[in-house]
């Protein structure tokens, strides 16, 4: 019984979704539902008694270890502070600006094939890119380029440090590992 409890704890710990009793039964190759139920409630009692950072949550017919809501504030601070996180769409846009700078929005959108207004604003706010000026063509569109902070974040001395496209291609395709 002691052991089953520990195994279940390890399973709950690594699982990214809630675990049903049936699932636990099949992993442990056990027949008895009761044994698992007892282990789960013992775990839950333990977590309640120690009042730590997490608890056992019963959801959607299963069980899950969750952090206590009172610590969400801190978790958000952890996730939001460095290391810098960026959405995939923003990364693509940033890559285009980095390699094709100075570049105007319509050219970026031509390459990506979608509207980039919102993303460009976010990148500007986060100081990854800056406005260099306006291009003297009809509409006088804004010209974008990367910032010093961009270099710092990507650990580059200068733009010359960016791998060239030939180098990227020379690396070839992912080898089978």
């Amino acid at each position, binding site marked *: 019984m002691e052991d089953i409890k520990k195994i279940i704890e390890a399973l709950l710990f690594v699982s990214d979704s809630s675990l049903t009793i049936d699932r636990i039964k099949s992993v442990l190759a056990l027949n008895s539902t009761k044994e698992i139920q007892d282990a789960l409630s013992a775990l839950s009692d333990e977590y309640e008694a120690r009042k730590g950072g997490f608890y056992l949550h019963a959801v959607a017919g299963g069980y899950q270890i969750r952090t206590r809501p009172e610590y969400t504030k801190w978790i958000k601070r952890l996730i939001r502070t460095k290391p810098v996180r960026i959405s995939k769409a923003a990364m693509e846009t940033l890559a285009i600006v980095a390699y094709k700078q100075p570049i105007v929005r319509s050219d970026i959108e031509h390459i990506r094939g979608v509207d980039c207004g919102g993303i460009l604003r976010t990148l500007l706010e986060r100081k990854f890119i800056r406005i260099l*000026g306006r291009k003297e063509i009809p509409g006088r569109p804004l010209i974008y380029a990367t910032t010093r902070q961009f270099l710092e974040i990507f650990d580059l001395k200068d733009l010359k440090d960016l791998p060239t496209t030939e180098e990227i291609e020379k690396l070839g395709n992912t080898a089978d590992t």
Partner: protein
Amino acid sequence: MPDEIYKVQLDGVFEGPMDLLIYLIKKNEVDVYDIPIALITDQYLKYLEWMKSMNIDFAGDFLVMAATLIQIKSRMLLPVHEDEESEEDPRLELTKPLLEYLQVKSAAEHLSARSILGEDTFIRTIDKEDYLTAGEDEIINVDLFELIDAFKKILENISDDQRLDLTADRISVKDRIAQIVDLLEKQASITFGELFSSDVNKGEIILTFLAILEMVKLSLVRIVQHVHTGIIRIFYL
């Protein structure tokens, strides 16, 4: 020999010439410091022949090594003169890299034997989205490789003629533009003299000049020459 090779084949094709050499040295139980070069060269070449006969593609590196082996073998055959005692054993050319490669192999084995995360021990995998309020899509950690990868994916979708301007030269010009803009952001205008004074070599001067031309073309700057002093000044627009 062919039978043995066949057996080796079952264990996987040799990764490279070094792998094959080490296999031959181990199989013959010889000392890396005293390699019987004729024997090893012979077996090495036989293996290449066998690969050819089996239509197995092998990298040019195997041929380079074959040439090296033959060269060492022939140098070993040359008579050693008494007065040339100090001359290096030609086999050292092989011993040094072999020893280094053996070290790498042990280091790799050591790494494989360590407790590996995701294999021997696990951490929690949580969905960060639970804690993020903004409706951002898939979130990735910023890392130079991610940036390159994003760009590589874009490249795959654009035509060849659009990619021509992505050479290192172009990037240098862009870099210079960024530097000039940095200066202009600080002081609004700058003289030609100031811009070129720090440039020591011709290449750098050309680079700066190209950068200025590009900036003029982009209407980032305006260039004005003073009627009396002749000083050329660049203004940030």
